[in-house]
């Protein structure tokens, strides 16, 4: 349009030039022949020049002004057409918003009064968007139109993604006049595309995924795995609801779980169920969306392979346990009987050898016990017998049970913090196992007549039990592997001191399985403190998750 206007001006100017030249020639001819005064030549030439030069100039100026006036006609009249369909804004040469349409107000949440005269950067979403705007402006000032995505910020701070065309505006003198932008809102389009990608991802999962309408219990989505399980296609499942599944018991469990979520206000639940003969870990999430129907997202993970694996491991553990313990029963049993002189007197030297054999048979039993404990933990099969336990009493009981250790190593063992009951939910036998291990280690690594402190602290939600010795301490370079299986410490004679090398790794697994934490502090030449912290409350699923993490 602009070039047409310029062509128009040029044409009129040429016409004016011809006319002016003709008029100039005519005047000259007339003046030359009519005017006889001394300035006749001047009188002929000057007006002729005037006609020739001025007329086209006047015409050009007039037409240009008209064109500029036309271009300066309020854009709002033009914007009126676009207003109904696109978001439009005009930016002046000072990079401020000069005009915005109604769609702009609706899309951004800003009113005209709030934005007019303000820097356009106020509607850019972030610095990245501002940087892009600077680059776009550079091209615009060279007369280039720009198209692409721009990230704007709504008044409420949320993202408004737009597809934008920006056209440069120039003044009559060719100077930069600003730009006009026409935009379409891409936010909703992108959301729909993201939803489509999500659906495609869900289809790739091996787990069965259902989305069920909370009110009607109809399926609004089944992924490929779920459709295959039921033998339904997309058209079929859209007509189905939970009640159409051929497993009333499983459906009832799912429906009850969904109702519980609605009633309690919780959003997530997990449980196991068997559906159509297949065992699953089920997770249900309650999806509450404002102004939309509530739905349940149900995910079913087939655990039949895992259960079979666990069953095989369990059988293996039982079998190995039996196969190892039976010959040990005979070995220990026969040596025990010999040592008790059930078969008569035994020579002194033979007795000493028998004692060595019997002692090591005992050690073998401990190692087997420890290995099988660790295997049970790895297989997630260690069960805990949770009870309400007074930890103070438990600590005192453990100390009494290990009185022989105290006498054997001539140690001063002191208790602190056990003068009042401290109750928690835990497995007493396993806690005793850990405490015994701590105490046994402390005794073995202490000098005769040194002191061992057992301290119980109430930490509020947790209880801490610590066993401190005045032994040599653990070398710094070995500390990182203290809880590893068969961690060999330099200068440590495990045979002389006893122990299987597995005790601390089992202690760690037990305490973590009970929902607690285990640790130690040690300084060479000063001593070592081993401690564990157990939660007072019932740890239920958290500990189960910990056990699964420990087992993995």
């Amino acid at each position: 349009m602009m070039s047409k206007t310029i062509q128009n001006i040029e044409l009129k100017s040429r016409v004016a030039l011809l006319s002016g030249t003709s008029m100039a020639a005519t005047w000259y001819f007339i003046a030359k022949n009519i005017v006889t005064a001394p300035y006749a030549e001047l009188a002929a030439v000057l007006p002729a020049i005037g006609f020739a030069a001025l007329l086209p100039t006047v015409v050009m100026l007039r037409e240009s002004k008209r064109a500029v006036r036309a271009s300066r006609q309020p854009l709002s009249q033009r914007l009126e057409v676009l207003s109904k369909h696109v978001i439009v804004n005009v930016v002046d040469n000072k990079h401020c918003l000069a005009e915005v349409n109604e769609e702009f107000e609706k899309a951004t949440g800003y009113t005209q009064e709030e934005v007019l005269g303000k820097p356009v950067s106020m509607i850019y979403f972030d610095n990245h968007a501002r940087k892009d705007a600077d680059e776009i402006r550079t091209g615009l000032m060279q007369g280039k139109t720009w198209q692409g995505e721009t990230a704007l910020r709504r008044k409420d701070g949320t993202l408004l993604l737009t597809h934008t065309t920006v056209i440069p505006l120039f003044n009559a003198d060719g100077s930069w006049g600003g730009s006009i932008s026409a935009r379409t809102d891409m936010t909703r389009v992108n959301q729909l595309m993201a939803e489509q990608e999500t659906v495609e991802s869900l289809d790739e999962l091996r787990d069965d995924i259902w989305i069920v309408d909370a009110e009607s219990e109809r399926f609004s989505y089944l992924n490929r795995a779920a459709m295959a399980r039921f033998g339904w296609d997309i058209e079929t499942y859209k007509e189905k609801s939970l009640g159409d599944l051929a497993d009333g018991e499983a459906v009832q469990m799912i429906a009850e779980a969904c109702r519980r979520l609605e009633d309690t206000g919780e959003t997530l639940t997990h449980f196991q169920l068997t559906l159509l003969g297949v065992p699953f870990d089920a997770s249900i999430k309650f999806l509450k969306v404002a102004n939309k129907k509530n739905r349940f997202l149900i995910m079913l993970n087939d655990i039949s392979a895992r259960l079979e694996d666990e069953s095989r491991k369990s059988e293996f553990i039982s079998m190995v346990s039996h196969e190892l313990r039976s010959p040990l029963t005979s070995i220990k049993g026969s040596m025990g009987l010999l040592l008790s002189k059930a078969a008569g007197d035994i020579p002194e030297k033979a007795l000493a050898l028998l004692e060595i054999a019997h002692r090591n048979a005992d050690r073998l039993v401990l190692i087997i016990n420890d290995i099988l404990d660790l295997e049970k933990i790895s297989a997630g099969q260690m069960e805990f017998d949770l009870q309400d336990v007074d930890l103070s009493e438990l600590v005192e009981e453990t100390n009494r049970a290990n009185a022989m250790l105290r006498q054997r190593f001539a140690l001063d063992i002191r208790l602190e913090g056990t003068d009042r009951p401290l109750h928690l939910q835990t497995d007493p036998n396993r806690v005793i196992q850990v405490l015994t291990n701590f105490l046994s280690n402390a005794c073995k690594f202490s000098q005769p007549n040194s002191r061992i402190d057992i301290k119980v602290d109430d930490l509020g939600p947790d209880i801490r039990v610590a066993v401190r010795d005045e032994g040599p301490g653990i070398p710094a370079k070995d500390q990182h592997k203290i809880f590893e299986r068969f961690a060999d410490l330099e200068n440590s004679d495990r045979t002389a001191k006893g122990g299987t090398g597995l005790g601390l790794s089992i202690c760690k697994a037990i305490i973590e399985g009970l929902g607690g934490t285990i640790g130690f502090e040690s300084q060479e030449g000063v001593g070592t403190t081993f401690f564990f912290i157990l939660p007072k409350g019932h740890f239920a699923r958290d500990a189960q998750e910990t056990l699964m993490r420990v087992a993995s």
Partner: protein
Amino acid sequence: MIKLLHVEDDADIREIAQMSLDMTGEFEVVQCESGEDALRQVQDYTPDVMLLDMMMPGMTGRQTLEKMREMPHLQEVPAIFMTARAQQSEQDELREIGASDVISKPFDPMSLADQIKQIIGKA
């Protein structure tokens, strides 16, 4: 004398248990090498206590006890299982089928008799 029926497939363990209980002079032991053997022997014999190994070829200790409990004269006889360290759930299952208690293997031959007497004393 306490009449004890010992069901154990391992000959060495049978011998050790026999020697251990003989030392006390308080037990009269009948040895069975399998669950099937035990069921034959109890047809016309009622022990005061039964000591059963858990894992045996053929009939397991559990299966053997279940069969024995079907016999009226054996329904109230205390039964002790000899087993590798059973978990709590396993011990509960054994009690549900009529076991009085569990003794872990390897057992201490010097204290076996006392353990048995303690269990039947409670039962």
